[in-house]
Every structure is written in C-alpha cells, then in structure tokens.
C-alpha cells in the first residue's frame, strides 16, 4: 500500500499541486475585518512597500472558532501560515494544543524587540514556564459607546457633551428606563446572541464584583458562583426590561447603535474606527463618544484581551532560518508602527508607542486609556479564551439564561459542570 500511495501521490502532485512560493513571501493569517481589517491592510501595504525583499500575503479568516479550527488543523498538516494573529486569552489552550512555536531571544533580537518593551501583563499572558509563545500587539477592552445626539437634553451629558452621572447599576438602569420611556426601543445594545459579546459583558460584570472565574483550577469556587449568578441576573434583567436587543447577532448589535436606534453600546474598542469612518464620511448622522465601562457592580474593571503575533508550530515544517528572520522582521516593524493600529481603537502593547505623544493625543483612545489599569484579562487557563470551552458555555448557557431559558443559578451550576467535565 505504501508504494502504491506514493506513486499515486506523486502523480497527483504532478497534476494538481500548487506552485511553490517565492522564498521571502510571508504567509500571514488574521481574523481582522471591518475597521480593524482596513487598518491592518494599510499596515501590511506599508510594510510591503518598504521591504522589496519581504512580501506579506495576507488572508483574513472568520473570527473565532472557524479561525482557530483552521489554524490548528492547518498547522497539524504543515499547511499553516508563517505568522498569524492570536488572542492571548487563548494562548494557554494554544500552548497545550502544541500549536505555538516558542519565540526565542534570537527571534526577538531579529525583530529588534525585547520583552521589557511591552506591558508586563501582556508578556505574562504570552509566557508559559518561562517560554514566550507570542509577541503581544495590543490590549483591547470593552468600552461603553454613547450617542450624544440621543442623550441631549437628559442629565447624562455635561456641558461639554461628555457622558456623566452613570456611576452605578442603579444610575445606569434609571438612564436606560428613562430612554425606554421616551420611546427608545433598545436603549443599550450588545451582541446578546453570540459567544464573544455575552462573555465580554458577563466577565466585566463578574470582575466588577471582584469575582474570579477560575481559581486554583476550580471553576467559580465559593462565592464567585453567587457573583456569576448576579452578573447573569443583571444581564437577564436588562433583557426582561427590554433594554437590550433579543438574540442580536454581532452585526445587528452594531447596526442598532450605528443606525441611531440604541443610545448605548457595550462593545470592544475595535468598533471605534467604524464610527470614526462613518462620521468622517458624513453617513453616521449623530455625535458619539466612548468611555471606560462605569463601575456598575462596585469596582472598576473591564474585560480585556490582547491580539498577538504567533508562529505556528508545524513539527518539521515549522519555519526556520531566513524565513523565520523575515517573519520576525515583519513583527518588529508592526510593533514599531503600531500607531496605525491604535487608530483602530486599540492600546498598543508596545510601550514606546503606547507612551508616545502621538498616541496620547488620539481620541477617543485617550478618554478610555485609563482602562489599561483596570483591565480584567481572562484567567490563564486552557478552558478560557476565544474559541474555548468557556466561549461555548457563554453561547450555550449564558445566552439562553439571559433570554429566560434558565435561571441564573442553574446556568452557573451548568457552567461549572460543563467546564469541570472539559478539564478531564
């Protein structure tokens, strides 16, 4: 059979196989689209025009489970990219799956970088047992977007047109109820029908109570379970009172805000360019702002994650030598030009850019830059992160609970059961 296999594969290869790639072509995968995608494309074009000897060929795949499924499967069969974007929240899972190739000191030197150039929290999230597995690119978090035009005439705008007077859940609910009473269909929008949106809001509300999702390998131990139930109950209450949209897919959740139907939006900083661009084109039709999520549950905290660059581990096919140096050149260049990425709303993970005057002058980034201190990253666990069992739980348990299919306490118990089972 072996001989037969190889004869067949040889002839099949001769007939159909794709042509070999040029030596210094860097195959790049990301999951960045919309405003993010446009800015990343600009960076890639910028790199390509400055480097005639290295050319990036980019592919954008669908965010979330589809991306990470493809990345893992392709790496396993030696068909992965040379470099890919990766969520640091998922790094522990990626390391366990053996998908990430360690970034050595030599690699960093090739990129002209060192670990001390980055926010320590981001480097920590990318490190396991003293080995670095990814190069952090940004920190991005959940923020509160608001429609200034809709809030005009309410007590929630100060003289400069900035959001004011929402410092607790009660105040938030009063504001939402007032809007609802004034005929606003959906006062606050977020992705109520998808894993990402549900998890981000839930994790923010949990962290604002000082709750922790995983402690010492146990899911929601002790009173963390009660805090999780409170977080879900809050989201459920918003749903029952008609404050949030029912089962909104990601796009619909954004459209509700951009079409002026929602006064508030709970979403990541990455949508900043969508509204900046629309306002610049004159198609938005209202003034808007974005602030750090107010301490609704008592403490200041907001869900955060990082995009990072990673090199897939493909066994014998893992890139090395000149190709690897070229990839590190790409990564180094991206970090040093991260101001173009900050334009997409993100906080650069690379300190020389994050601390530059140019960055400090950017709006609305500067308004919410404070959140870097209150960022609540996902626990370092193989259970959490984008496209992880926890995201499944957000979609399959938190979502239905928010929409009234389960009680919050039941949902918490089910999360604990499911994730504990997944640990084995």
């Amino acid at each position: 059979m072996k001989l037969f296999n190889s004869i067949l594969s040889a002839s099949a290869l001769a007939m159909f196989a794709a042509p070999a790639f040029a030596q210094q072509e860097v195959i790049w995968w990301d999951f960045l689209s919309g405003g993010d995608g446009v800015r990343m494309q600009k960076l890639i074009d910028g790199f390509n025009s400055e480097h005639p000897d290295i050319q990036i060929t980019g592919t954008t795949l669908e965010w979330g489970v589809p991306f990470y499924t493809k990345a893992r499967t392709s790496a396993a069969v030696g068909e992965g990219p040379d470099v890919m974007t990766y969520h640091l929240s998922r790094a522990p899972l990626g390391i366990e799956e053996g998908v990430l190739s360690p970034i050595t000191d030599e690699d960093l030197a090739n990129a002209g970088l060192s670990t001390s150039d980055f926010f320590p929290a981001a480097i920590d999230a990318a490190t396991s047992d003293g080995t670095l597995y990814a190069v952090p690119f940004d920190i991005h978090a959940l923020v509160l977007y608001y429609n200034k035009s809709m809030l005009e005439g309410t007590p929630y705008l100060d003289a400069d047109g900035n959001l004011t007077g929402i410092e607790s859940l009660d105040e938030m609910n009063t504001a939402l109820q007032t809007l609802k009473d004034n005929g606003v269909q959906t006062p606050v929008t977020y992705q109520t029908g998808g894993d990402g949106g549900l998890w981000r809001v839930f994790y923010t509300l949990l962290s604002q109570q000082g709750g922790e999702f995983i402690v010492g390998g146990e899911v929601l131990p002790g009173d963390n379970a009660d805090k999780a139930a409170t977080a879900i109950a809050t989201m459920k209450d918003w749903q029952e009172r008609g404050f949030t949209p029912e089962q909104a897919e990601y796009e619909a959740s954004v459209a509700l805000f951009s079409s002026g139907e929602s006064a508030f939006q709970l979403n990541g900083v990455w949508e900043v360019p969508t509204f900046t661009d629309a306002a610049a084109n004159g198609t938005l039709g209202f003034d808007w702002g974005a602030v750090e999520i107010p301490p609704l549950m008592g403490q200041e905290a907001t869900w955060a994650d990082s995009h990072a660059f990673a090199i897939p581990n493909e066994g014998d096919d893992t890139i090395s030598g000149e190709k690897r140096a070229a990839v590190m050149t790409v990564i180094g260049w991206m970090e040093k030009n991260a101001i173009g990425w900050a334009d997409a709303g993100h906080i650069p993970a690379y300190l020389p850019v994050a601390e530059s005057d140019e960055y400090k002058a950017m709006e609305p980034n500067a308004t919410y830059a404070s959140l870097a201190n209150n960022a609540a990253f996902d626990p370092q666990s193989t259970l959490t992160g984008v496209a992880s069992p926890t995201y499944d739980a957000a979609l399959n348990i938190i979502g239905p609970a928010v929409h009234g299919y389960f009680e919050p306490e039941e949902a918490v118990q089910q999360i604990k059961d499911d994730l504990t089972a997944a640990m084995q």
Partner: protein
Amino acid sequence: MNTRRLESAIVTGFTIIVALIWVFPLYWALVTSLRSENRVVSRPGLLPDEFNIGNYADALFNTQLLTWYVNSVGTAVIVTVVVILISMMCAYALSQINFPGRRLLYLVVLASFMIPSQALVVTQFILMDQFRLINTWGGIILPQLIVPVTIIVYKQFFDSVPREMREAAVLDGGGDYAILFKLFLPLNWGITTALAIVTFIGVWNAFFWPFLVITSEDMMTIPVGITQVNDAFGLAYARLMSVALLAALPVVLAYLIFQRRVTEAVMISSGVKG
C-alpha cells in the same frame, strides 16, 4: 366551457403567485445588495429605492471572488469530465462484458450509492495529508470522483442498446474501446450531457469537503470562500448580499441560458424520462 376557462385562469394565477413568492428571497437579496449599508438598516420598504453598485465593485475587487471562480470552475470541470469518463468505462464493462467479479462489482457500486462518503471525511482528510494534497486542487477533486449513481444510470442505458448493433460492430472488427467511444457514446450522447450537467451542479455546490481540505484563501472554491472570508465586524449586509449574488451569478446565468437542456438533464439522468 366558461367555468373551465375561469378555473384554468385561477389555477394559472395561483401558480404564478406561488412561484413569485418562491423567488422572493432572491429578489430581496438583489434589492438589499443595491442599497447603501445605512439604508439597509433604516427599515426600508420592499421596493427597490437605491441603485448603488458600489457594493458589487467592492465585492469584486476587495475579495478573492475571481480566484474562487477559477478554483470552482476548474475543479468542477475536472471532476465532471473524469467522473463521466470512468463511470462510462466501468458501466460499459458491467453492461457488455461478462468478466469475473462483475456481479460483485455491481453490488459494490449499488451499495456505495446508498452510503454517502461524507461519513468518511476524517480518514479521507488524513489520507490527503499523507499525499500532501491539503490545499490543492487534487485534494478537492480526488474524493469527489466517486459518483456511483452515474455508473448505475449509464449501465441502464447501455443495457438497452440493441444487441445486434453491438454484434455488428464486433463483426466489423472493433475492439471494446472502439465500440464504447464510436458506438455507445454517440448513441448515448443525450444521457452523457445530462449526467455531466447534473454532476457539475453537484460539484459546483459542494461545501463540506472543500471546506475541510482547503485552508488557504487563494485555493478556496466559491461556496467555501464566501463563508470563510467575510466581514465579521461593522455593517455589511448589503456587501454580504452582493458577494452572495456574484458568487451565484455564473451558474445562474448558465442555467437561464440552457434551462431547457438542464431540465431535460435532470429528467433523463434520474431515469424518469427515457
């Protein structure tokens, strides 16, 4: 007579209304695709009110749609030609030559018709990895070459070719290959194009296997490409609909032009119409 005419008018009218409702999704996709994104989410009416082809330009130039067309058409044509050829040869042998193992082979063909190869994707994928055919046309094509139903249909048609014609050809000194390609193929040209059309539509629409075996954007086929590479962020309904319609356009056009032929093909290849 009058009530009959009235009745027939009612039936005609009713049928046309149902047919129009049936294609409403396509109409709505078209209307959406011609609107600006902002208009789309402003809860507009059912009638077209904007004629914005920017979405189409965007779809054509900012996605790899053209590359995916090439991959889809290329792989679908190769699969179709190879399937037709190997099925015809196999069916001819099954129908005309009494070779050892003939009954067994036919049983295998019948059985594999009942069991879709979708159940085998995991091991087929592993096999493709061993052949290093992930992300190649070969990877898309090879497992799709098994279409036992074409053998079954061909065999039925070959069985009904009059014995005398074949015997005459044998007396003329023709070998089996000559008989197949010079006698049986021309005699069964109708069923051949019919099977080719039906096979082509099937392969063109295949999603699951190409979705598994292709990971790089420039090797994707149309059905896979438009789902894997999309705008997950920001507003994109109109754009999504333009991409979807452009993706469907070539085969829809081909169908509209050759609709008589396609209708015939479906009827003949299923054996309902001889």
